[in-house]
């Protein structure tokens, strides 16, 4: 029987994968993907818990997050394209300009 804990474990694994991606990746595009993975990990958790408590609020939240993520990707990809046109690279080490 697949229970709540299975979903949560999946969610945690996905989140960790995303987190490692965020910490290790140097390419901006990859960072984006990693954050998407983290968001979706949270979505899974929301949906599962919502089902567990029989409360639709969590699933609604998941939809919201999907919507927000979609618009974020739209804006973010736009910025990435501009950056790429300007610098010819999406590597973070090349983009660092605000050295303190």
């Amino acid at each position, binding site marked *: 029987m697949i229970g709540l804990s299975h979903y949560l474990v999946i969610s945690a694994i996905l989140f960790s994968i995303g987190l490692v991606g*965020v910490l290790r*990746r*140097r390419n901006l595009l990859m960072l984006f993907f990693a954050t998407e993975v983290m968001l979706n990990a949270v979505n899974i958790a929301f949906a599962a818990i919502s089902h567990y408590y029989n409360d639709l609020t969590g699933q609604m939240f998941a939809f919201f997050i999907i919507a927000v993520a979609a618009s974020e990707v739209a804006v973010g990809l736009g910025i990435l394209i501009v950056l790429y046109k300007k610098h010819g690279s999406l590597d*973070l080490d090349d983009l*660092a*300009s605000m050295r*303190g």
Partner: protein
Amino acid sequence: MENLVYVALFAPFVGSLFAALFGMSERRIFVGIVASILIGIAFLASATLAYNLLMTGDVVQIRMMDWISAGDFNVSFGFVVDQISVTMMTVVSLVSTVVHIYAIGYMDHDKSFNRFFSYLSAFVFSMMVLVMSDNFLGLFIGWEGVGVCSWLLVGFWYHKPDQAREDNPSISPSWAANEAFIMNRIADLGMLVGIFILYWNTGSLQYDEVFAQLPYLSDAVLKGAAIALFIGAMGKSAQFPLHTWLTDAMEGPTPVSALIHAATMVTAGVFLVIRANPLYSMEAVEGVSFFIASLGTFVAFYAASMALVERDLKRIIAYSTLSQLGYMFAAAGLGAYWIALFHLAAHAFFKALLFLGGGNVMHAMHDELDLFKMGNLRKEMRGTWIYMTLASVALAGLPPLAGFWSKDAIIETAFNEHTYFLWGMLVLTAGMTAFYSFRQIFLSFHGEDRYTALGFHPHEMYKFVLVAMSPLAVLAVITGWFMGSYKAFIYKIGESVQYEMSAHTHHLANYLGLIVIFFAVTGIVIAYLKYARTGEKAWKRDEEKEQGFFYKLLKNQYYVPKFYEEFITKPYMMLSEIFWTKVDLKIVDGTVDSIAKFFYGAGDKTRSMQTGNLSNYLNWMAVGAVLLLTIAAVSAMIG
């Protein structure tokens, strides 16, 4: 009568302001004349007041206006003319008048002539405030006022450079002026404390109110007040150990030395003790009074001993002033206040005369003061010689001149109080006094002529100056004859100033007087044999003797100035430097700066986190999130 009080008080002030108007312009003789006339007016007013007091016995007391009032404290400008203050007023204004006229002649080549008169009259005004005030704070005004005027006048020739102590023991006029001011300030603190004690215990500073409260005060309070006030008196009257400034103050022009550092200001300390005689005659302060008498006797002897070897004309007279002040304190400490006051007046006359005579010599010798370079000046300066001899006879205490009567009475008092040791010291000092004052006369006016070889061409002072000095000469002779009537006059003030010799002393009075005269004459004879003769037996300088231990000890004033310099001035300077460079800049400010530097440094160190690389930021964010989560978890578990 009230108007006369104001005239006596403010005439010198007007004179000072008048002279100050011309302070920065060139020398104008009339400034000196106007100032002298105004001081003369003050003298006439004082004399009238004295006469009136003598005839009617009415003490004049006036209150001019409020000064300071805060909380319960209240003090106003009030003046009292009673037997004590009127004596001082008359003496001060008389000597001042003579000195003012004298100064017209003495200062006539000085470019700061007008400024000099402004200061001198301001001094007289302060002195009048000092003696006339009816409360301790008013006295303190005058007290500080004369201090400032003395500072201005000692440093009158401010442009002279500093010299090494070996070349000039007083270093420079401005140095001597500062020394005098600061030493007096040390004593003034004592005086202020005395004022505080009296105020908080009697609720007033008015003489009569304070004195009326005295019987109800505890012994400790009385002692404290007496000691504190006497510390004030020690500074102004240059008693040991605050005495070094007086001889250095001789850097000032001679009229200043005559007026301030001989006749008037330095006697203010004695005046204070006499003024506060109800306090000093309380039984509880007997110890303090005896200390005053002992210190006075000690200073009398101590100063006389230094005068024995001094070569500087003015410094000898300064030492003798110091010594005579010691006599006055001895009398006051033993309870013979009126004798002290009488000696004060007599001393003012003959000492001022002596100084002014010294000024004539100085003027004649182009500011040369070394006695060893003089000799036989008598043939050039007959008038001055007569004056100075008269003054010296008075100082030595030979009858019938003023000094004999007053000084003899003091010595007799010491005998009467059964303080035989003090008596012996005072008699011995009388002999020394006679010796050094005649040593000075003989070295300068008698013996072989030593100045011509050195290229001096002395000339006698102006006639009008000599005439102006004559009142002092007359008074130096006759003052003593009025001792009896003065006694009757001052006895009216009350029991505390009255002092009578016991029958036993009275019986022996003639013998005691003879002993003093014997010592004085011996001193003069020794001085004559050693210094006055001419030809074969003429005095020769003995360089070898000057290297002797005692000679050097006396010559260097018992090394007291040296001691002050080495153990007070220099360490103070060093400590100040350390406080500034080490403590304030390094420790206090260093701490403040190190706090600032800590934050600055912390920012500088953590700045490297700001790489500009998004990836690094994200890493830090993760660290932060983990940290926060851990804290939340830990606090949840604990809570």
